[in-house]
């Protein structure tokens, strides 16, 4: 077994430990509960809204879109915050000081962020299926859910890691990461069909993975007839795969470089400066 593989294994163990610690922490449990309440509340309040197709409930259309957006949000904002924070608190520097520590750190982070999606999905899906009928048109849709989830994660997580590596401080993650993702959620056909927006906005939305993750999720949950609501009246499955894969490949090429650059710049005095800056809120 090579030393790198060894480091990856230690990192994965780290990811598992972090995950277990996370689901045991009240802070994180509240976060999951909060997103679940928000999502279900939105679905409940708008439960009688018209979908444009006879017999198709609003929740059936909105839930998969929201799932796509939540996954994208989770794997972009989650790692962005984690990296920005762990750059400042010295977690990264510690890993820089041990042999192959950065390899382990990144492996752990990728596993932890992926695993964190599970409780997120459970707290939304379980109550949704209890509250609303006819959410999943065909049981085979779960298979589609699985591949959209995996591809979506591969496409979006490197974006989150890259933002986290480049952002100059934790307080900046809001404007560098959170805000763009929220704007993207607003234009990616999550809350209303993307066709209602101007043409150029539709183009922008379709460049990023979030739109395609929502579309993929809708194709998994909804009956064939609902495809008529989409651009071109089709689920555009091939295009979904191509766009998400492209993001995944670009991400896999760019992310390691950005992370290496970030690791090289880590020093004790930088951590010390961040510590002092964090105590000084008003500048």
């Amino acid at each position: 077994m090579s030393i790198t593989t060894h480091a990856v294994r230690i990192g994965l163990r780290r990811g598992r430990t972090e995950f277990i610690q996370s689901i045991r922490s009240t802070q994180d449990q509240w976060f999951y509960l909060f997103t679940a309440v928000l999502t279900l509340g939105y679905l409940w309040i708008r439960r009688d809204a018209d979908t444009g197709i006879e017999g198709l409930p609003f929740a059936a259309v909105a839930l998969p879109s929201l799932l796509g957006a939540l996954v994208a949000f989770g794997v972009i904002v989650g790692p962005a915050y984690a990296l920005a924070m762990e750059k400042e608190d010295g977690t990264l520097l510690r890993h820089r000081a041990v042999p192959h520590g950065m390899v382990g750190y990144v492996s752990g982070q990728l596993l932890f962020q992926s695993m964190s999606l599970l409780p997120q999905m459970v707290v939304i899906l379980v109550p949704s299926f209890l509250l609303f009928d006819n959410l999943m048109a065909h049981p085979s849709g779960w298979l589609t859910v699985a591949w959209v989830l995996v591809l979506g994660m591969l496409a979006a997580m490197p974006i989150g890691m890259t933002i986290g590596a480049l952002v100059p401080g934790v307080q900046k993650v809001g404007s560098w990461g959170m805000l763009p993702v929220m704007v993207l959620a607003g234009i990616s056909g999550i809350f209303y069909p993307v066709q209602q927006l101007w043409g150029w906005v539709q183009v922008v939305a379709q460049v990023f993975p979030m739109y395609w993750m929502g579309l993929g999720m809708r194709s998994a949950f909804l009956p064939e007839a609902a495809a008529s609501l989409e651009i071109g009246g089709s689920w555009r499955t091939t295009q979904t795969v191509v766009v998400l894969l492209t993001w995944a490949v670009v991400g896999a090429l760019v992310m390691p470089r950005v992370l290496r650059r970030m690791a090289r710049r880590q020093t004790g005095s930088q951590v010390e400066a961040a510590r002092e800056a964090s105590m000084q809120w008003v500048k």
Partner: protein
Amino acid sequence: MRGLRMRYGDNDVLNGVDFDIHAGEVLCLLGPNGAGKTTTIEILEGFRIRSAGEISILGEDPASAGESWRARTGVVLQSWRDHPRWTPRRLLSQLGAYYEPYSTPEQPRPWAVDDLLEVVGMTDLADRKISTFSGGQRRRLDVAMGIVGRPELLFLDEPTAGFDPQARRDFHHLVHRLSDLESTTILLTTHDLDEAEKLADRVVILAGGRIVADDSAEGLSRRVAGEAEVKWTRDGERFVHAAVDATAFVRNLLAQYGDEVRDLEVRRASLEDAYLTLVQQHESGRAEAAAETFAEVTR
């Protein structure tokens, strides 16, 4: 290490710093705040790229050294809120695991977690959440994380900053133990002369971006103490003279002027006096002058 230089823009932070560190030695880099200690140690740790100069540590240049060099060195970092949900036992076995491939019969790595916890006096805290620790407990954990891979060379930057006296004494014991029993080579920085005298086999004093003294603590004291200040008054006039052999000087003085000499005062300069003067000058922004004065006194 030869001719180490560090520039930020037009500002020379380090200006030709030279020193050697020998295997098994405890070397203390002493100097006032802002003298360039942290910059120097970060360059030696390989965390910061130098502007010029040559460095060889354990046979390699830290700036380009690989992961096996990392495995032979340890860095004690100051934590403040990392790994709050972890326990020392979990974290130490996690970090220690990275050193397993570098274990040799002569130098088994990593340190067994239970032994390590005992060495730093944390056995009782082994399974407590790190977020509940006091500052002193955290710092002991920092040391444990720094030495978990049984390093041949250990870097410590201002290790006792913020320690209470008891914690400081415990820490000094730990450094002696590492040095004596594990024969770890230790490079540490401090701005506290007392600490340097207690811990170091050799003290390198850094001021104004250069080295103003490099000797054992005893050697430094002896060199400074070599000169004494003689003060007296004669005919209402005050005289001050720095003399190498104060006794001979006073004998001559009295032989020459006899009863005219009054208020005679002989004061041996201590290392502490010399160092305090250096710090004061440094803090009032006269770093260069401070370095000059000190270099003269300890010449």
